[in-house]
C-alpha cells in the first residue's frame, strides 16, 4: 500500500504546484492546513481529524518504505508521536497496512550537516528507493550556537542528492515556537527566526524534488511540549494531523 498521484495529472505530486506548497503552514489548532497550493485536496486538508484521504489520488504509487523521515530528536525521540500519528491517519485512510510503517532515519542531536550526509546515506543504503521525505533540520545547529549560516546551502546540497536519487516530494517542517510555553525560549527562537527563512527559500526554490515548506507554529499549542523541544501526545497529534493533511492535499503516499 502506499503512494498515490492525482488522477489525470500524469504523474505524482501536486498537479499545480511546480514545487511550492503551503509555506504558511496550518491555520487552526485542529491541525488543518491553509494553502491550496499543494494541488488537489480531496477533502482531507483542513479537516484536522486525520485519516481522511483523497478520493482523487492514485493508490499504491509509493511504497511505505519509500517514505522516509529525517531530522533529529523532534522526529527521533521515543515514542515517536508524530510518526505514529501520521501512520495512524494513513491506516484510517487505507493508505498504510496495519503492520506497515514508514522509514525513520532521524537521529537525536544531529545538526544539518549530519542529516544531509549520514542520514541521507542511511536512507539510501543498499540502493533503497526513496520517493517522499518528511524532514527538519537546523534546530541542533541553533541549540549548539547562535546561528547556522551554512544550513541553507547544506539543505540545497541535500535536495540535489535527493533529485539524483529520484525523490519526488519533500516536506520540510519549520520547528514550532521553542520553549514551554511555546516561544519562551528566546535565544533558540531568535536563531530559528534568523535561520528558517533561508530554509524556506531553499525549499520553495526546489522543483526537483518538489519541496513543500510546512510551518508547524500555528498548530503548536500549550501542552504540546513539556520540555520546550519535543512533542507530547497532543503535540504529536497536532503535527501528525497537519502533515497528513498535507500529504492528502498533495497526494503524497496515499
Amino acid at each position: 500500500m502506499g503512494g498515490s498521484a492525482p488522477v489525470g495529472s500524469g504523474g505524482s505530486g501536486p498537479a499545480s504546484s511546480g514545487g511550492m506548497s503551503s509555506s504558511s503552514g496550518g491555520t487552526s489548532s485542529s491541525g488543518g492546513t491553509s494553502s491550496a497550493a499543494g494541488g488537489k485536496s480531496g477533502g482531507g486538508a483542513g479537516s484536522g481529524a486525520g485519516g481522511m484521504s483523497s478520493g482523487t489520488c492514485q493508490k499504491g504509487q509509493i511504497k511505505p518504505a519509500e517514505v522516509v523521515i529525517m531530522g533529529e530528536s523532534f522526529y527521533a525521540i521515543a515514542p515517536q508521536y508524530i510518526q505514529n500519528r501520521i501512520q495512524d491517519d494513513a491506516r484510517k485512510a487505507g493508505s498504510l497496512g496495519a503492520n506497515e510503517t514508514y522509514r525513520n532515519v532521524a537521529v537525536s542531536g544531529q545538526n544539518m550537516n549530519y542529516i544531509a550526509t549520514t542520514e541521507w546515506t542511511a536512507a539510501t543504503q543498499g540502493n533503497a528507493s526513496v520517493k517522499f521525505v518528511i524532514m527538519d533540520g537546523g534546530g541542533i545547529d541553533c541549540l549548539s550556537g547562535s546561528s547556522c549560516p551554512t544550513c541553507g546551502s547544506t539543505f540545497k546540497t541535500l535536495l540535489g542528492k535527493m533529485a539524483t536519487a529520484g525523490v519526488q516530494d519533500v516536506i520540510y517542517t519549520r520547528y514550532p515556537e521553542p520553549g514551554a510555553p511555546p516561544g519562551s525560549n528566546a535565544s533558540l527562537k531568535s536563531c530559528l527566526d534568523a535561520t528558517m527563512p533561508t530554509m524556506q527559500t531553499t525549499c520553495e526554490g526546489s522543483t526537483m524534488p518538489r519541496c513543500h515548506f510546512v510551518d508547524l507554529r500555528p498548530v503548536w499549542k500549550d501542552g504540546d511540549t513539556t520540555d520546550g523541544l519535543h512533542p507530547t501526545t497532543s503535540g504529536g497529534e497536532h503535527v501528525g494531523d497537519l502533515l497528513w493533511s498535507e500529504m492528502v492535499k498533495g497526494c503524497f503516499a496515499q
Partner: protein
Amino acid sequence: MRISWLATAIAVAMLALAGCSSDSTTATPAPAEAFELDASWIYLGPSDVPHELKIDDGSMAFTDVGGNWASNWAIKSYDNEHHQFRLAFTSGTGAYLPVGESESATYELSGTLLTIQLTPGVASYPALQGAGTCTGAADGMPIAGCKLYIKKN
C-alpha cells in the same frame, strides 16, 4: 664517570625536592576541580522519555518533564580528564530512571552536546559507543544505556 656524576646530581635534586614537599604538608590542598558537567541538560534521546538532568553540588537529578518521576543520585566520584563518573542512588519517585543502587558512566562532551553511557554497578566503566548519536553505526539502532543531552540555556 659523567653518567655517575649526573645520577648523583639528580639524586641530590630529588632529595631536595622531597624536602620541599615535606615542608608543604601544612599547606592548604588545592581545591578539587569542579565537575565539568555541572549544568542543566535537556534529554534528546534516543529511547527514554523526555526528561531533564541537573548536575550540581555533587548530585545528579533526573526529572521527567511531565512530572511523573524523578531520581536523585550522589556523585561519588568524577574524572574530568578521563570523562567518567560514579553515582549512588539517593531517592526516587514514580517509575524513575535509571534503575539501580549505583551507576558507572563514561561520557563525551562536544560543545553543548553530552553523551553519557551508563552501566549499573561499580565494577567497571562502560565503553562509550555511539558518541554524539547513541545509535549503532552499523544498524542505526539505539544503544542501551546511552543517553544524549544538550545543555540547557
